[in-house]
C-alpha cells in the first residue's frame, strides 16, 4: 500500500483544484512529516459505543451546577484526578492521567455537531459518514480516505477488530475492509490442503457479472477475506511483548493490533469498539469499569508501542456518538445528550487540553452546547497525520484542530 504524501498528492492532477484550499496549513504538516514517513503512519480508532457520559469523564468538578444537577452521580472533588482547578479525570482514568503527564494525550472538549441527533444509530451514522440522514450514505470517512490511498493486492489498508458488525465509517465503494475477531479465527479450515485452498481462492477471485450489486460485493469480500487470511496466518507469530495488557475486551483487541503492527503488516487504520456506554440506569459501577478499561488498555498499548519502537508512527483516537444529559435521571443514570470530549493519544501529538469545557449555565434543552465540530478533529488526522486532502473525505471544509506537534 502506498499512502500519498502531501507533495505527491499536490502533484497529481486530480488535486490541482484542491491546491488553493490548503492555504496556510502546509507548514504545520511539513513539520509533522519529520516524525515518521507518512506511508508508515497508523491510526487506531476506539469507538465508545452507546454515548459516553463526557461530563463524568472529564469532570468540571469546580462547577457548583455540576453537583446540583448530578446529586447522586457527581464525582466528588476529592476523588477526581485533577487536571486543572476546573476540570479533572474520573478516578478510573488513571491511564489517561498518566498519558497526559507524559505528554501523550490530547483532550478535545465540547465536540459535537450542529442540530444534534439523540438517536444512537443516527448519531453514530453521522459520526461515521459525516453526512445527515437526508443524504445518500454509502460510505464512511475512513472508507473514503483509504480509497485515495489503497493499492489492492497487498495488505489491507484498514482493519476492524471485534465481534460487532463492521462500522459504517470503514465502508467504501471500492475497497473491502476485513473484520477479524481474533487471529486464530482467521484461519481457514482445510487450507492445509493446497488443492482445496487454491480452488476456493480462484473460484472467489473470478469476476461475476454486475460487479456493483450484491453478488459482486460478496465476491470481492470473499476474495479479500481469503487473501487476508493467508497473510495473517503467516504473520502475527513474530510478536513478543513484556507489557501486560488488561484482561478485557479492549485490552485484548489492542494487543492484537500491537501484534499486527509488530508483524510488519502495512495496514494504516485499525478500528476497535468498546460497547456499554448507554448508561440509562445504575451508571456509576458500569461507567467506572468502562473508563478503567479504556484508560488502562490505551496506556498499555502505547507502552507496548514504545518498547517496540513504533511509537512515533502510531496515534489512537477515541470518540463516542454523543455525550449524556447534564441532569441525571431517576434510575441513577443519564439519558442521551449532545457534546462530549474526544481523546487523541500517542507520542506524535501535541499534548494538552484543547478548548473550554462547555458551559453548564448555557444548556440547550438540558444539553451541553458543542463548540468544536468533530470533523475538525478528523480534518487534523486526515491532513496533518496522513497528509491527505480532507475536503472530499469530509464532504466540506473544516479547519483542523491543532493536534500534532
Amino acid at each position, binding site marked *: 500500500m502506498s499512502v500519498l504524501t502531501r507533495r505527491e498528492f499536490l502533484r497529481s492532477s486530480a488535486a490541482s483544484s484542491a491546491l488553493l484550499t490548503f492555504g496556510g496549513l502546509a507548514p504545520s504538516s511539513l513539520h509533522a512529516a519529520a516524525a515518521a514517513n507518512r506511508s508508515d503512519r497508523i491510526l487506531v480508532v476506539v469507538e465508545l459505543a452507546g454515548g459516553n457520559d463526557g461530563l463524568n469523564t472529564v469532570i468540571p468538578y469546580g462547577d457548583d451546577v455540576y453537583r446540583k444537577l448530578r446529586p447522586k452521580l457527581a464525582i466528588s472533588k476529592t476523588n477526581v484526578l485533577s487536571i486543572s482547578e476546573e476540570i479533572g479525570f474520573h478516578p478510573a482514568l488513571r491511564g489517561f492521567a498518566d498519558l497526559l503527564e507524559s505528554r501523550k494525550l490530547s483532550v478535545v472538549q465540547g465536540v459535537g455537531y450542529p442540530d444534534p*441527533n*439523540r*438517536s*444512537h*444509530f*443516527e448519531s453514530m451514522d453521522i459520526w461515521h459518514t459525516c453526512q445527515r*440522514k437526508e443524504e445518500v450514505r454509502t460510505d464512511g470517512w475512513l472508507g473514503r480516505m483509504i480509497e485515495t490511498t489503497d493499492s489492492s493486492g497487498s495488505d489491507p489498508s484498514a482493519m*476492524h477488530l471485534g*465481534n*460487532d*458488525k*463492521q462500522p459504517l465509517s470503514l465502508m467504501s465503494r471500492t475497497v*473491502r*475492509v*476485513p*473484520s*477479524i*475477531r481474533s487471529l486464530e*479465527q*482467521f*484461519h*481457514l*479450515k*482445510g487450507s492445509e*490442503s493446497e*488443492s*482445496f485452498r487454491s*480452488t*476456493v481462492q*480462484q*473460484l*472467489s477471485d*473470478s469476476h*461475476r457479472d454486475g460487479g456493483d*450489486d*450484491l*453478488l459482486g*460485493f*460478496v*465476491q470481492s*469480500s*470473499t476474495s*479479500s*477475506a*481469503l487473501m*487476508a*487470511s493467508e497473510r495473517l496466518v503467516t504473520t502475527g507469530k513474530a510478536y513478543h511483548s513484556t507489557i501486560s495488557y488488561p484482561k478485557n475486551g479492549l485490552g485484548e483487541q489492542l494487543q492484537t493490533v500491537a501484534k499486527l503492527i509488530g508483524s510488519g503488516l502495512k495496514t494504516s487504520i485499525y478500528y476497535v469498539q468498546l460497547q456499554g456506554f*448507554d448508561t*440509562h*440506569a445504575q451508571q456509576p459501577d458500569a461507567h467506572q469499569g468502562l473508563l478503567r478499561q479504556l484508560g488502562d488498555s490505551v496506556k498499555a498499548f502505547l507502552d507496548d508501542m514504545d518498547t517496540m519502537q513504533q511509537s512515533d508512527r502510531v496515534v489512537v483516537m477515541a470518540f463516542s456518538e454523543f455525550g449524556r444529559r447534564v*441532569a*441525571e*435521571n*431517576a*434510575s441513577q*443514570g443519564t*439519558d*442521551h445528550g449532545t457534546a462530549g470530549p474526544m481523546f487523541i493519544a500517542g507520542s506524535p501529538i501535541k499534548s494538552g487540553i484543547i478548548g473550554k469545557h462547555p458551559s453548564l449555565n448555557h444548556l440547550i*434543552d438540558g444539553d451541553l452546547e458543542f463548540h468544536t465540530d468533530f470533523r475538525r478533529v478528523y480534518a487534523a488526522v486526515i491532513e496533518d497525520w496522513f497528509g491527505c486532502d480532507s475536503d472530499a473525505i469530509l464532504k466540506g471544509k473544516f479547519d483542523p484542530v491543532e493536534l500534532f506537534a
Partner: protein
Amino acid sequence: MNELIDPDWAWAEYSPSAQSPWDTRMAAHLFRRAGFGATDQELKAAVEQRPSELVDSLMSARESDAFLRDMKSLAGAAVATGNVKQLSAWWTYRMLSTPTQLLEKMTLFWHGHFATGGEKVKDAELMLTQNECLRRFSLGDFSKMLLEISRDPAMLIYLDSATNRKAHPNENYAREIMELFCLGEGHYTETDIRELARCFTGWEIRRGEFKFNHYQHDTGTKSILGKTGAFAGEDGVAIVLEQNSAPEFIASKLVRFFVMDEPQPDKTLVSPLATLLRQSDMLLAPVIKCILSSNLFFSPHSIGRKVRSPVEFAVGLLRCLEGSTNSFSLAESMDALGQGLLFPPSVKGWDGGRTWINSSTLLGRSNLIRTLLTGDKTRFAKQSLEDYFKATGLDKPRLVIDHLERLLFAVPIASAAKDRVESLMKSDNDSSFVDGIHALCTLPEFQLG
C-alpha cells in the same frame, strides 16, 4: 431501480407463465424466504400444488400437540439452567425441527424488531416469556403485540425502563417505540419523546412482573404528535400507532425481510401494503400473504437478492439436507457469525443485508461448513452426508453438485466453477468429498438466498 417497479404489478398475485414458470427453483425460493428451506421431497410435492395453495398451507400450518409438548418441556429444562444460551439452543432446535416454518421465521423477524438481549436481561424465564409472546402474535395483531411488548419485563429491563418515576421520566422506551418499533427516525421530535416518556411514568417491573404504580404516574397534560390530553401509557402507545408512518414503517420492513435487501423499497412501492395493513386494523396475516403471493416476490427483483443471515445459512443448509446437529454448538456458531439468538447486537436488532458480510464472518461461515461436514455430531437423515447422498442414488460428484445447486443455491453456479469443484472431488485424497462440498458452500453465490 425502484422507480421502475409498478406497485400495481408488484403486489398483484403471481400467476405462473412461460417466462416465469412455477418450478422447483421458485418453490425453493418461497421456502427459503417464508421459512428456512425445503428438502428434495418437499420441493417435489410443492410443484404439484399451485403457488397460492402452498402459501396458504405455509400460513395456516399448525404445530401438533405432541410437538408443542416437546417444545414446552425442552424450554422448561433450558430455563431451569438459568442460562439464556441454553434457551438460544432450544430455539435453534425448534427452528431445525418445526413443522411451521413461517411462524418461526416471523418470530425471528419480530425478535429482530423488538430486539432484547439476554446478556442484560439475564433471566431465561423472562426471555422465554417474550419469545412466546412474539410467536403468539407473529402472524397476528400488531397492535396487541406492541402493547404487550411495551409492558414486557424483558424489554423494559433491557431498555433500563424497569423503574419510571414522575420526577425524572426515563426516555429510553419512549424513544425506541417511536424510532425503532413503529415510526422510524424523523417522524417525531425530541419533545414528543419527552412528553411520551411522561405517559410511561409509573410503569414498573417488580419481581419479573409488570406493575402500574399510580403514585409515580404523572397525571398531567401531555402533548404528543399533535394530540393533547392527560394520557396514560396505553394512550401513548395508541397515539404512536395511529400515525400514518406506522403501517408504512412496518410494511417497509416486511418487504425488506421477505423480498429484497436492496434497494430500500420506496414509499410508492410500500404504500399499497401500508394501506392494506391499516385497513385490516394492523393484522399482519393479510399483508404477509400478499407479499408472499406477489409478482414482485417471484421475480428477479427478489430471487437471490438477499444476503443469507447466519440462521438462514446454517439452519437452511441442515433443513434442506434432513440434517441434525448439536443445537448448543450451532447456536454458538451462529452467534459468532453475528446472529446470536436472544443476543441481538443492540435494540435496533440486526441490520442484515451487506452488514452480515465481512472477512471474519465469511471465513467463519466457511469454517462452519467444514465443522458440520466433519463433526460426528452432525447427521443427515442419521448418516454422514456422503452416505446420505449415496443412499439417494447420488453416487457421482457431478450429481451431488447439481443436486446441491437445486436445493441450496438461489443464484446459479457458473459451469466452469462446477467443473473445478468436480475435479477437486475426483482427486485421490481422503478429504476430497468434504473438500468439494466445502468449496461449493464457500462460493460467493452461496451467501445469497
